[in-house]
C-alpha cells in the first residue's frame, strides 16, 4: 500500500526453516501452531446423529452413519496445507476416507461439487479437484481424533487448494451441474483457490 511506515523491530511469528522455500507457495509463511479461523460457533454434533451424504446430480444418493463411515477403508496421508490468510504448515498428517471411495460407483454428469457442513458452511469445487486421489474426508489429525475446533469429527481435506476449501464439520457433498458459490466464494474468494497461482480473490 506504499505507506512506508513500519514498526521498528517487529518480525512477527513467521518461520522459514532451511530448505523449505520451494514448498511454500508465493505470499505464504510458515507457522508453528495450527491457527483456528471461525465464521461461527463450533458445531458439536453427536456421533449418533452424524451422517455423511452424497447427493444432488447422482443416480442414487447415499449416506453413511458414523459407524459405516469409519468402517470404510481409510488412508494415512502427509501433506502441506496452505491457508488463504497466508500461513502454511508442512508435513501435516491425517487419516481419512478418500472421496474417491465415497463416490465409487456413483453415476453422475455433474462437474461441480458443493461441500456442506454443520453450522451452514459451504464451499464449492470442480468435481475433478476432489477426485483422483486429491481429497479425503479426514477424521484423524496427528494420530488423534480430529478436534471440534479443527473441524472434527470429520472435515473435507483438499490440501492442494487453499484451506478454506477443506470444509470443517463436513456432512456431505452435493454434486451439481452448475457451479454454486459457497460461503466465502460468494463474498470475494476465488472459485478455484490454487495457492501456487495465488488465486485468493475474485479476478486473481
Amino acid at each position, binding site marked *: 500500500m506504499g*505507506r512506508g*511506515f*513500519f*514498526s*521498528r*523491530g*517487529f*518480525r*512477527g*511469528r*513467521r518461520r522459514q526453516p532451511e530448505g523449505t522455500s520451494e514448498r511454500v507457495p508465493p505470499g505464504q*509463511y510458515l507457522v508453528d*501452531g495450527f491457527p483456528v479461523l471461525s465464521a461461527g460457533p463450533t458445531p458439536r454434533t453427536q456421533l449418533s446423529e452424524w451422517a455423511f451424504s452424497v447427493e444432488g446430480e447422482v443416480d442414487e444418493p447415499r449416506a453413511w452413519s458414523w459407524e459405516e463411515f469409519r468402517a470404510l477403508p481409510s488412508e494415512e496421508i502427509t501433506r502441506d496445507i496452505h491457508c488463504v490468510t497466508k500461513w502454511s504448515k508442512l508435513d501435516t498428517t491425517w487419516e481419512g476416507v478418500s472421496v474417491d471411495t465415497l463416490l465409487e460407483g456413483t453415476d453422475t454428469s455433474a462437474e461441480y461439487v458443493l461441500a456442506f457442513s454443520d453450522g451452514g458452511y459451504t464451499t464449492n469445487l470442480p468435481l475433478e479437484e476432489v477426485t483422483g486421489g486429491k481429497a479425503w474426508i479426514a477424521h484423524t489429525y496427528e494420530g488423534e481424533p480430529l478436534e471440534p475446533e479443527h473441524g472434527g469429527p470429520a472435515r473435507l481435506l483438499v490440501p492442494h487448494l487453499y484451506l478454506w476449501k477443506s470444509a470443517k464439520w463436513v456432512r456431505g457433498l452435493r454434486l451439481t451441474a452448475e457451479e454454486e458459490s459457497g460461503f466465502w466464494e460468494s463474498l470475494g474468494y476465488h472459485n478455484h483457490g490454487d495457492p501456487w497461482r495465488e488465486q485468493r480473490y475474485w479476478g486473481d
Partner: protein
Amino acid sequence: MATTTTVTPGASNATGATRMAGTPRRLAWQIGEVAESIPDTPRTKSLFLEVPDWNGHRAGQHVDVRLTAEDGYQAERSYSIASAPESGRIELLVERLDDGEVSPYLTEELRAGDGLELRGPIGGWFAWDANEGGPLLLLAGGSGIAPLMAMVRHRKAAGSDAPVRLLYSSRSYEEVIFREELEALAAEDEALEVIQTLTRSAPEGWQGYDRRIDQAMLKDVAFPPQERPLAFVCGPTPLVETAATALVGLGHDPARIKTERFGPTGG
C-alpha cells in the same frame, strides 16, 4: 433522524437538529508516538501515546493497533483505552501473553519515541458517559480492567457521584492492575466501591474473595436488580459469559448488561 444530506464541518442543518456527530469519514489509520511505556504488574505495561489528529474518545472505547514488519507482514489487535477522555492522552494497557505475537513486541520492544500505527476510537456501543448516570456495575477480569478504568477515571474527572461498584478478578495480589490508584480512588469516594477476588493465590490474611466470579458472589456484591444498574463486563470470554449469565439469572435486565469478551486468553 437528522435530515442533512450534505455536511459542512461546523454547520448545523436547516432544521437546527444536530447533525451526525463529527464529519462523516471512514476510520483511518494514524501514526501515534509512544510518549512513555510504564510497567505496572509483572506482565503488564501502560503505553501512553500522543496522536496528532485525535478527536477524543468515550470511556470504554478501543483502538486497533497495527504492526508492520519491514517486508510488509502485518498483525492487528484491539486494545481498550484505559485513560479518561478528559486526560487528553491515550493510555493502552497491554498484557504480555507468552505465545502472543503482538503483546511481546508492545511490552518488550516498543519504546518512547517509536511510532505505533492505530485507528480509533472504535465501538460506541461499549461506552459510558457520566451524564448517563448509574448505578454502575463494573465486572473486570485481568486486563479487562482497561475500559472500565477509563469509566472510573472519567466518572471522577466529570465530577459524577453515580454509585459504582467494581468487582475485579485477578490471579494474585501482585497482578492487580491499577491497584494503587483504585485503592486511592475508593478511599476518597464513598460512592465508589472496589471489591477484589483473587483466583490463584492470595496474601496472608487476605479478607477478600478467593475464587472466580460466580452468581453467589454477584448476589452479594452487585446492586440489586430493582436499582437497574448499568453493567459493563470485560475480560476473558469464559469470565464474561459466566458473569453476564449470572447477572441475568439474578434478575438483571439483559438490555442493561454490556459485554466485551477479550477472547479465550485475554487482550
